[in-house]
């Protein structure tokens, strides 16, 4: 998918190194492949609106940024609940498809790679029900 992943927390790069070396690399069997960024003063987190002043840490904010530097989507969770990585990848693939088609194709609810897209146009107005069924939103 060719995306660059950046992780960010308020930890120093030294702590990132130790976490990678002593725990994460053992989980993975190799080094963390992406850049682990340090935001010790929380300024990046503040700019993205996900820094929690009360606890002094960053919440689980995830932003998808396109090749022009435009935010296409984001999700923010409180610390105790982890993310669903495959949902992030699904969204990335959907945004990539829309960009590749110049918006000629769009992805309905529940879309996954290989599934039906919709082609907006005058003929589709009031006719989505003919080409797309609600059950498709719930398909695996």
């Amino acid at each position, binding site marked *: 998918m060719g995306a660059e992943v950046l992780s960010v927390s308020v930890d120093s790069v030294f702590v*990132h190194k130790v*976490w990678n070396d002593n725990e994460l690399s053992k989980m993975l069997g190799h080094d963390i492949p992406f850049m682990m960024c340090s935001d010790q*003063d929380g300024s990046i987190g503040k700019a993205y609106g996900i820094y929690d002043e009360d606890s002094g840490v960053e*919440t689980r904010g995830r932003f998808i940024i*396109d090749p022009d*530097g435009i935010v296409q989507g984001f999700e923010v969770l409180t610390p105790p609940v982890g993310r669903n990585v495959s949902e992030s990848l699904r969204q990335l693939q959907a945004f990539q498809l829309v960009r590749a088609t110049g918006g000629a194709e769009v992805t309905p609810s529940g879309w996954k790679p290989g599934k039906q897209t919709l082609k907006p146009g005058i003929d589709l107005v009031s006719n989505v029900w003919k080409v797309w069924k609600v059950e498709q939103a719930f398909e695996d």
Partner: protein
Amino acid sequence: MPEEFKPGCERPPIKKMNVETDIAAEPVVKEEKKSMIRVGKPAPDFTTRAFHQGKFKNIGLSELKGKWVILCFYPGDFTFV
């Protein structure tokens, strides 16, 4: 592309906000401009330090123009989730 740097003993630089040094002046309460992130709008640029595959690097978001970027914040290293 991200440039490697050699860590020294100095404290990593912390980007300070503007501090009013003139104590005689009326205290200025700076309204921090809090613009919400919005989809379809530019992502705030930043530069920072990173650990990447055995090396320390300087990285700026703007260096990644032309690529899709997934930017993930999390509460802290060694937290459990």
